[in-house]
């Protein structure tokens, strides 16, 4: 099976930033998500909404980026939501216990 191309898009609004993730999130593509998501998580006080509708696959490296973002959000008391999470990806957040720490809308 061919790997889907990975893409991160952001859309800035007055009170929130939306991040859209497409494709396969793994060891190779995780650095690109890290570059985009972590600075926003660390410094931006607007609500951070991450849409996973087009996220096809995620491994533990990918989960690690969300965990790192979550830690950064906690420091600045910022909010972070995950939206339109496919069932396959939801399971990863459930099994890891991260779903208790991150709001899945």
């Amino acid at each position, binding site marked *: 099976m061919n790997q889907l191309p990975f893409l991160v898009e952001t859309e800035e609004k007055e009170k929130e930033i939306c991040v859209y993730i497409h494709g396969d999130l793994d060891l190779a593509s995780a650095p690109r998500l890290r570059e985009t998501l972590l600075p926003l998580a660390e410094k931006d006080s607007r609500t951070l909404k991450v849409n996973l509708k087009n996220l096809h696959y995620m491994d533990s490296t990918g989960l690690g980026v969300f965990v790192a973002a979550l830690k950064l959000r906690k420091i600045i008391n910022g909010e972070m939501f995950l939206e339109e999470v496919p069932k396959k990806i939801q399971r990863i957040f459930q099994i890891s216990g991260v779903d208790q*720490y991150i709001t899945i809308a």
Partner: protein
Amino acid sequence: MKQVKEYYKKIMLHYLRNPGEHQLYAGQQLSKSLIEKDIPPEDILALHINIMKENGYILPREWERSFQFLMEIMVSFGMAYQERQSLRLKKKQLESEINVAISMQKKLYPHTFEHGFHDLEVGFISTPAREMSGDFYYYTKHGKNKLGILVADIAGKGIPAALCMSMIKYAMDTLENDVKPANMILDYLNRLVLKNADPSLFVTMFYTIYDPLTSILTYSSAGHEPALYYQAKSKKFQDLNTKGLILGVDANVKYEEKAIQLESGDFIVLYTDGVTERKDSDEPDDNSILREAISSADLSLPAQEIVNHMYQHAIDEKNYQLDDDHTIVMIRKK
């Protein structure tokens, strides 16, 4: 630099007036000095052209223009060459680091499960997808009569992951005479990972403690795949799961503990997600690969052979594409 330029001028002019092998050889030796002094190729070309002009050698206009063109090429060539050298050095350093980590890692895994309990058998297999594995498995005796077994997946690579693995292994060795319950062991390891490991790392772990006196197996999970329990009498499967966050994220996590009683022929299978992951499917991953393998296995065989069968079935299903590390540990009451 001035001396180098003077020397270049000397051997070049000598060559023009009286060409010979020894000037060419001198030029070859000079090129090593030029590289050592980091002189870019465009500077050498500029020097060459200036020496020719200063000594009255006139270039036809087209030749002069062609050298201007060549100068531009040499500028980019020089930059690309420097970048390549820098990347090669970084690659070499990384390879050296990985070799150290691999060598460290090999010493951490047990080669057998020498538990000494006559009514228990353990089979296991662990194969990395790349040079280094993120999977870890280990066992320790708790007091005289209990056996602790863990399977873990360390999310992170290279030396930080190998160090984390090493820390967990040595922490487990210190628990040899301890009779902490499974969930308290996870609590202890969670604080250890949070305090000492690289902040980018986290660990999933499934911990079990078996008491041969009561045949009770207690278990606790930190964000790990559920274990698969097979009951010999009913030939039924059950997932064993408890709530608990992955290790290394939050110091205030409370880990759950549950228990089952094993009867003769019952077994549990601990595994990492590489075994059950189906990258080509949109459905949530579950352990149906293992259930299928067990259903088709000859369960009268030793645990190790059943584990080998499960592993083979898993890789057959993925057409031998090992995208992730695979670890399976089977614990059976005889």
